[in-house]
């Protein structure tokens, strides 16, 4: 199905609103036509000096159209916006429902940069789709119909001429404009993108530019791009100006055509001279309907491009699928990973290259390594975000792939570095993991995460709104809320995925103490590149380039030396100097 048709299907449930919007737009232009036609009629008729009674009806008409135009315009704007908001709501729901099964695998490639906000911008770009893209052509068609009826009631050639000029202005000019502006339009978009990149370089890289004496070179580069853009925009102005000029010209030529056809008819007595002015002024007024069409073509193209990008994102098969006959949910938290091999794409190097280990129920296991060693890949597989093809992961003795993905995730509580806190109240954020939790359960989880006192100190306590538009929390407070949320879930397997990354070393130490307390007696997998509190682990696996390079307890690994000891030494030095406090050491 083409993008345009697919986008139009979102309008199908809004048929009533669409029709109403088009009718009101038609009535708006129709009022203008009516106003000018009746006005012309009044003065033409008055010129023949009849009694005032002959003008009464027309005078009422003029007053009526004089008032209705504004009212119709007002109603039309309300209805088109109402329609747009409904359309956007539908599209958001569609898009979310479509991307939900694809997350996070599909979103992974969008996390970098601001591609996620590009999605948002593309959805917003659909705002123009109806108001500026679909409605104007509908209105133009209706007005053309009205004009035809009006003109044809006098003479067919008049109707044909007017409609011909309307079509030329409404269809021919948009096509011509698009054709003429396509190349320079595309070039301008490219120049603008290049200019954007150069400006980003100039602002974010200003220190490197200054130190290397490249200031005037960079400025010169930007100036040149800026001049190119101006030149391209000037060329576009030629086309846009031509478009406005031609539309006006066609409107004027419609007048000429009507005069050329009607004057002989008046002379021959086939047309009452009273209507000569009526026809001319009505045709001029009708032209209003085709004025927004060149712009509508551009808006439609923009909306379609945005929609195409969005459809492209969701039109892929999900990474994992639930089995046809899933096993009942697992009971025990025993985990066995056997010879698992995985890469994100057939061409990419393996992210995991033959990993085997076991986690007994109640055990605490740490998986450590530098960034890129394969730690987060392992988490992605455990959480059923990606499918593995080689080796097996057994939960409660049976392959992970044979359970429903939701059951697997319900079995695990995760505190990760990217735990997202929503722009909602603290209570709402906590209850996400268990909607039915009582206030007491909420408080108990917060107490264990050692964040209850802080929450209580807030003026609105648990009802404080957090996130971008609410209270800004420190990194440590955010992680404690994430811990409380995980505790509230009360799942048998606790996964701490870089739970203390990017925290101040002293804050990290405090949170690790909390985590040690809550993980007592719980099956816990700690994934981290920061070697903190390692003495509390039953076993530590050192990942390096997708393989397990070493395993053992902290004491054993330190004694053995190698990559583990190097990592630990490096970190201690930095932590010590960053905090200036010997207290950081174990």
């Amino acid at each position, binding site marked *: 199905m083409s993008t345009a048709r697919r986008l139009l299907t979102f309008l199908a449930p809004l048929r009533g609103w669409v029709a109403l919007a088009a009718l009101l737009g038609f009535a708006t232009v129709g009022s203008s036509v009516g106003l000018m036609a009746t006005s012309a009629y009044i003065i033409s008729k008055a010129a023949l000096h009849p009694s*005032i009674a002959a003008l009464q009806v027309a005078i009422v008409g003029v007053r009526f159209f004089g008032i209705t135009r504004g009212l119709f315009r007002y109603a039309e704007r309300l209805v088109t916006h109402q329609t747009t908001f409904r359309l956007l709501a539908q599209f958001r*729901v569609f898009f979310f429902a479509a991307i939900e099964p694809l997350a996070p695998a599909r979103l992974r490639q969008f996390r970098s940069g601001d591609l996620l906000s590009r999605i948002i911008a593309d959805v917003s770009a659909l705002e123009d789709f109806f108001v500026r893209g679909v409605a104007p052509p509908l209105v133009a068609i209706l007005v053309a119909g009205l004009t035809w009826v009006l003109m044809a009631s006098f003479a067919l050639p008049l109707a044909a001429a007017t409609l011909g000029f309307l079509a030329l202005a409404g269809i021919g000019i948009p096509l011509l404009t698009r054709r003429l502006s396509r190349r320079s339009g595309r070039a301008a978009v490219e120049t603008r993108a290049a200019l954007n990149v150069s400006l980003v370089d100039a602002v974010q890289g200003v220190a490197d530019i200054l130190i290397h*004496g490249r200031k005037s070179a960079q400025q010169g580069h930007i100036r040149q791009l800026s001049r190119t853009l101006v030149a391209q925009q000037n060329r576009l102005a030629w086309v846009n100006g031509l478009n406005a000029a031609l539309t006006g010209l066609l409107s004027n030529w419609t007048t000429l055509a009507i005069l050329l056809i009607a004057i002989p008819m008046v002379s021959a007595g086939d047309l009452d001279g009273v209507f000569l002015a009526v026809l001319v002024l009505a045709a001029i007024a009708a032209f209003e309907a085709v004025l927004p069409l060149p712009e509508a073509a551009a808006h439609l193209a923009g909306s379609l491009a945005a929609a195409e990008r969005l459809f492209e994102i969701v039109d892929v098969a999900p990474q994992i699928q639930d089995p046809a006959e899933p096993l009942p949910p697992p009971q025990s938290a025993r985990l066995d990973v056997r010879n698992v091999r995985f890469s994100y794409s057939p061409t990419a190097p393996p992210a995991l290259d033959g990993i085997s280990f076991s986690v007994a129920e109640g055990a605490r296991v740490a998986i450590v390594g530098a960034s890129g060693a394969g730690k987060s890949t392992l988490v992605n597989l455990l959480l059923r975000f990606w499918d593995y093809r080689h080796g097996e992961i057994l939960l409660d003795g049976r392959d992970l792939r044979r359970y429903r993905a939701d059951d697997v995730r319900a079995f695990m509580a995760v505190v990760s570095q990217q735990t997202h806190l929503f722009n909602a109240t603290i209570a709402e954020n906590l209850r996400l993991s268990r909607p039915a939790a009582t206030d007491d359960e909420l408080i108990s989880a917060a107490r264990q995460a050692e964040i209850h006192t802080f929450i209580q100190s807030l003026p609105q306590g648990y009802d404080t709104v957090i996130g971008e538009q609410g209270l800004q929390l420190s990194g440590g407070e955010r992680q404690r809320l994430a811990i409380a949320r995980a505790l509230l879930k009360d799942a048998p397997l606790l996964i701490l995925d870089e739970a203390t990354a990017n925290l101040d070393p002293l804050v990290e130490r405090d949170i690790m103490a909390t985590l040690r307390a809550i993980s007592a007696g719980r099956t816990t997998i700690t994934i981290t590149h920061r070697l903190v509190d390692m003495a509390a682990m039953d076993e530590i696996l050192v990942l390096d380039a997708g393989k397990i390079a070493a395993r053992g307890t902290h004491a054993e690994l330190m004694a053995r030396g190698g990559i583990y000891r190097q990592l630990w030494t490096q970190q201690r030095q930095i932590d010590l100097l960053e905090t200036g406090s010997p207290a950081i050491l174990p």
Partner: protein
Amino acid sequence: MLNPRLIRKTRLASVSLTLTIAASFLTGAVTVAQAHFLSRIIASVFLAHQTLATVTPLLLWLAALSILRAGAVWSGQIFAQRTAGRVKAALRDRLVAHVMALGPQFTRTERSGELINTAVEGIEALDAYFSQYVPQVAAAALIPLTIVIFVFPNDVLSGLVLLLTAPIIPVFMILIGSIAEEMTQKQWRSLSRMSAHFLDVLQGLTTLKLLGRSRAQVKTIADISDRFRDATMAVLRVAFLSALVLEMAATLSTAVVAVEIGVRLLYAKIAFQQALFVLILAPEFYQPLRMLGARFHAGMAGTAAAKRIFAILDTPLPKPPPTPPKPAPRRFTIALENVRVAFDDGTRPALNGVSFTIADGETVALVGRSGAGKSTIAHLLLRFIAPQSGIITVDGAPLHQLDMAAWRAKIGWVPQMPYLFDATIVENIKLANPAASSADVRRAARLAHAEAFIEALPRGYDTRIGERGARLSGGQAQRIALARAFLKDAPFIIFDEATANLDPRHEAEIHAAMAALLANRTALMIAHRLNTITAADKIVVLDGGTVRESGSHAELLAQSGLYHQLFRAFQGAI
């Protein structure tokens, strides 16, 4: 709405702006002439019973005028765009020059997005301002004026109606506009809140999925969309009133003119042709004013953008040295004497009287907890900032009197997170010396221990990095900065050791490269590793913006101060 400072910028394009206004005036004049001929033709045929043949000269006039009008409209738009282009290009140049002169302290990361946005979107918002809004203001002033001048001799009463109703439109537009603008702002805020919520849910999708709550969000999204729609529509119902008044004023006035001339025509108080002339011109009279309403938003957006642009341009630049700058020194004995720096107008002190010396050829390690002032010292030496008091001398000459470019040419800088440009690896390394040969670039990369990972990239040295290319790890990026420093071959090095994205294997490589770079050079190290620190000729321990202690490793250990404490703590832990 016509920002005077912004309008003054059109002096850069006074010719094209004058031509834009002239085209506008011509359009008005042609409109009047067209109405004149059209009314004459209709009157001749309708009342004087003339034929097509007798009115043909008039029709030819009408045809000629239509072409003239199209020409005026066309050239008007072309000149308007020229005005916009000139002003935009000039302002963008000034903005870029100013921002770069303000330097890294001003463009620090939290502000960079806003700066870039102003330089791209802000400047482009001026396009619509100058190419649409300003010409429309001119048209709204000139075209109705021209029309009314010609209507008066034809019919005084209609002229009065037009003249009296015309001011109603701008007055109401400003009156309602200011209320509506506030409401429109509110509407945009609520619209952007709706987008923000959607973004929030998309960003948190993984979290929702982990908690098994993702599918429940479909209903929430629908509910919130509905709620926001209702709130927004309530706002729009008021905001759109301005358009309602605008349309009403225009159409009702036309209706009033039509009825008023119609009735007087009935009693032969006005001629038909004059009446028709006035009627044709009535909607043309209001058209530019209505269009001005449609361009209102471009005006608002342009004014808002101008405010942001001028705010940046008004940030004062650091003072240039008063006397002719001195050439760069030959020896790099650098002394800081009682240097004080405070940020945010003195409210955030960073250095409180720091004094120490880096002797020529020496490596000095700066040590201290985060926030102790280490980077501030580096920025002082790079001259991104200047001390509020105290003095820095190089080979006895005050640093601020040295020629800025010549001084910076003497510095090799390896920051923790160097900026990599959206260009190839070669171009990124060549930043340090654009004239370098490719053999030089390879040699620098080899010395920086960067060759192996560069050659493993899909297109080797020609691999594009940055937004549109491959992404490098922190350790790799720092080795590119090292390669730049080798290529620059400057006598004084400022090196900031990385603290994040550690990988023991890269660590060893960076250390080897660093040692090679420091040989026979003067250096300031912001150190985070004990082996770096112990290898330095001198260690300066910073604490709370002052020098807590300084000396060689052995001297400091003998002093039993903070350094001693930290070093022993570390040794004890291993």
